[in-house]
């Protein structure tokens, strides 16, 4: 097989449910040891893609290879390589945490001599040691979520797929899980989906944005910003009239927008945002220009990094516009 260093290879994946095309020709590759984040609005096809990767659902067409093995041809050996936590994290409510993990360890074919160590490692990694004798059905959502994660990492598989692992966790637990996922980097390939964008940004090496069953954006957070955000924003604290600022800065570039976002404080400084088209760095030129106008006193100037939310919104909006364009002639007929 080609490129053994790719843990996951997906080629032109399609999945149809009746007339609905849930996954519409997705292709991507994940290198070994990478952490990949799936982003997308609800119903975008994230969970379906993940299910196909685990071999639980079969694709309508396309090719998926896990560690070089085609999923459709050999779904059974794929399951030994994957730790999966489904959406909503279903667990049997009547078992105790330790009973559940022991049973799962047996099902995942962990050798008898390794089982104890694996369970202990998973319990410790998910901070469940104190809760191991409690009944799963009586645990709070955060605990249950961690039991699901412990189950996914239990067999130390090559690939871990988790559908919204941090949903319902408090900030402490989110940090715990983030550190846990980060600690897997290099050892295991991890795919997570989440709605918590800063979460994805902090942990993931690669982000795949899916909308309407198609990939609308792919790359590292920086690459995605460069693709989808075509302007640079500077934030400065200014004592003076913003209109005057606009006129004095118009010499730098005509495509410049000044926006006051906060009222002046006690010292008379207000926060102003300057949006400039393009991705070049205007920082130094802004300083030079401002230094020439003594009536505009500046206390601070910094380049603002666009939050991933804006990237996400821009990417999904762009894909919707393409869908609308495609639908428009059909309606006209």
């Amino acid at each position, binding site marked *: 097989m080609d490129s053994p260093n790719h843990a996951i290879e997906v080629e032109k994946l399609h999945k149809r449910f009746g007339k609905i095309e849930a996954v519409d020709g997705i292709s991507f590759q994940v290198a070994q040891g990478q952490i990949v984040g799936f982003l997308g609005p609800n119903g975008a096809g994230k969970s379906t893609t993940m299910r196909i990767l685990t071999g639980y659902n079969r694709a309508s067409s396309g090719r998926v290879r896990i560690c070089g093995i085609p999923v459709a041809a050999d779904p059974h050996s794929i399951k030994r390589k994957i730790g999966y936590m*489904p959406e909503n994290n279903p*667990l049997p409510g009547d078992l105790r945490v330790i009973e559940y993990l022991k049973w799962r360890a047996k099902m995942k074919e962990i050798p008898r001599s390794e089982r104890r160590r694996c369970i202990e490692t998973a319990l410790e990694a998910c901070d469940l040691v104190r809760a191991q004798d409690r009944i799963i059905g009586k645990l709070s959502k955060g605990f249950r979520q961690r039991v699901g994660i412990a189950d996914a990492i239990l067999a130390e598989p090559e690939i871990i797929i988790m559908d919204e692992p941090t949903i319902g966790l408090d900030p402490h637990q989110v940090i715990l899980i983030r550190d846990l996922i980060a600690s897997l980097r290099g050892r295991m390939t991890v795919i997570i989906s989440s709605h918590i964008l800063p979460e994805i940004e902090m942990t993931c090496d690669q982000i795949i944005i899916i909308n309407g069953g198609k990939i609308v954006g792919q790359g590292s957070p920086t690459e995605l910003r460069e693709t989808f955000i075509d302007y640079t924003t500077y934030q400065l604290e200014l004592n003076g009239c913003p209109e005057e600022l606009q006129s004095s800065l118009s010499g730098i570039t005509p495509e410049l927008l000044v926006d006051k976002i906060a009222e002046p404080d006690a010292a008379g400084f207000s926060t102003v945002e300057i949006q400039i088209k393009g991705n070049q760095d205007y920082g130094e030129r802004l300083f030079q220009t401002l230094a020439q106008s003594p009536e505009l006193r500046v206390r601070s100037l910094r380049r603002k990094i666009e939050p991933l939310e804006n990237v996400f919104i821009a990417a999904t909006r762009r894909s919707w516009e393409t869908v609308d364009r495609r639908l428009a002639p059909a309606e006209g007929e």
Partner: protein
Amino acid sequence: MRHYFTLLRNEIWRLLISPGTYIAAFLFLLVMGFMFQWLLQLYTSDPQDETPSSLFFRLFFVPVFFMVPLLTMRSIADERSSGTIETLLTTPVTATEVVLSKFSASYLYYCTLWFITSSFHIIFFTFAQSDTFIDPYPLIGGYSYIFLSGSLFLALGIFASSITRSQLVAGILGFTLVFGFIVVGSNVEDLSVLAAGQAHWIRQFSDHVDALQHMGDFSTGIIDTRAIVLYLSCAATFLFLSILMVEYRDGAS
């Protein structure tokens, strides 16, 4: 079948720790105890042709109607509605192992409950007929029929549960299938439409699948291999269909 015993042990363990198991067992034994006591009362008023044990086995279908759906409706439908079937089938287990382990666990529970009712006969012989020896053959025949037919009835119940994700639908469907087999199979020959000679094969068919007739045969000591083949082959067929159903609904869909 590497995971069959792991799954079976887990199923039995979950039955053992669930309060519902004990409540169902209690109610079952209570109903059966009342039935047995009611039968004995019949004997005090009128002389009867048969022994109390064979009359008791003749009423075996009463608990079957409610026990089989209750025992099996949860099995696969519950896994599906709670979503745990997804975590189960993404480990290296096959649908065959899952279905067979669920069937085996409910079959063992069913047999255990019936086995406990044998104490009724022992108590009866010890206290009421202490001067005669216990006659084991009708008991052996009757219980072997119950264990044999149980395999089919529970397979029907598991099949009903494998079709749907709602426990209620599974329960109703299971009841209908079991009811259909016992009642329709035993009464179809009484229909007046079939009185005409041309429906000869229907009569033959209904003779062959008449559950009450089988019960009568077995409890009088006639072990009919045709019945054994019928129940075991039908049970195997419905288990096979359940496996296909799980693979279809939860694997390929």
